[in-house]
């Protein structure tokens, strides 16, 4: 995967975070965790995942999410599902 692809996922996530949390001041970085963002609970987590599923036409399972601890993990998961064969 290229750095540009990774950047594109972060850019998309920035839009999703604005929609989900109603805030534009959250700085996204690979180490960001749910504990760092007020209101990032399981409900919002599912909303973020559903937005990613819709945008990238992918499926993300709850089992896969159990191995996601940081935003970087989530980005890697998305990139793994969207990578060209």
């Amino acid at each position, binding site marked *: 995967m290229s750095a540009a692809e990774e950047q594109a996922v972060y850019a998309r996530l920035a839009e999703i975070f604005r929609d989900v949390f109603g805030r534009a001041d959250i700085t996204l970085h690979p180490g960001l965790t749910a504990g760092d963002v007020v209101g990032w*609970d399981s*409900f919002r987590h599912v909303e973020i995942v559903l937005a990613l599923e819709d945008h990238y036409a992918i499926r993300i399972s709850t*089992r896969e999410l159990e191995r996601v601890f940081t935003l970087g993990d989530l980005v890697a998961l998305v990139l793994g599902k969207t990578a060209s064969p």
Partner: protein
Amino acid sequence: MIAGSASTLRLRGMADGVRLPRIVSGWVDTARLPVSSIPVRIEILRNGVVIGSGPVDRDRPDISADPARPAGFQLTCSDELDDSDLALARIAVIARGVDGATGELPLYGRVRAEALDRLLARLGRPIGETEAHLRSALAAGDPLDATMAGELEAIAASAGAIAPDRSMREVMMAFESLGQDCALGSAQRHFGAEPLGLLRFSGIGLDAVRTALADRLRGVGDPAFTRMEPDDRGEFFTRDIRYHMQAHTFLFAANEERAPLFARQCRKLQYLARNLLDVLHEGSKIMVIHGLPDDLPDAGLRALLAVLRGYGDCPLLYVRAARPGLEAGEVVRGEGLFIGHVLVEDDARRPSSHEIFESWGRMCRRVHTLVHGALPVGVP
């Protein structure tokens, strides 16, 4: 255990935030308390000595939306706390109502787990290391930092204690609730495990869940079959009108616009239903049903097991109250299922929330071993 109160009411809540070295925050479920218990105060003790106290006076809209019943607290301790205080559970957080009602608030499992990780990292030892490894390291004369050796010895000596480590979190993540109520979900939270699950924080009876699963959860999350109403403290609950499945949203009417929230909640239910079906087909989780405090009927359990077998081979754990000859934490094999035993509030010993959760942890470890063989690294 807390003793000596005029009221028999037990206060519930959690200390879910610690900012070292002095700040402890959390919540008390004031929404359902009688007015006679409010205001509630908090005491923080280390080794039995009070090092902080103050009122429950902060907004926690996720717990109570009523400004007359604030649910949150944030206290500054007079003494500094460190990671070993958290990892070894040396601090106790006590809530006291004005009428004498009391309760010990457990420390959020993730706070303890992260403190242990930091403690181990300072020693240059692997994350996930637990009491058994520490015990053997100490027995082998492994040179440890002199000041930390005592702390680690205390972990090793805490007989029966479950190490608050990532591995215990992994054990608890392996279980999936089939409803009834939030008992499993709360025990998972105690150990820092927060899996997403359709029925984790749902109320649904044995017959209804069997019917829903037999129907392949068809239509769960369909707006036509879903209702969303606030309860008497303002939290929205969703309800499936066919299966009488009620679920927390942890969102409050005072803070949310109803129509868009309903649409989002329906999508969430659809997503979680889809994933529960996948879990059942894959057999990737240990499904849990409980009869607490009263046992479930054998016929109902057999019928549920038959429906589950229509999906695949997922193990089923039936949880019931400990009883003479079957102590809390013990597991026996039944016909096609495991039967585990835990402490319950009604027990004559009046166990604390911490003791109840720990009994869930011991039971889940045993079932995990029976299903998967060796436990994850670090679990004794």
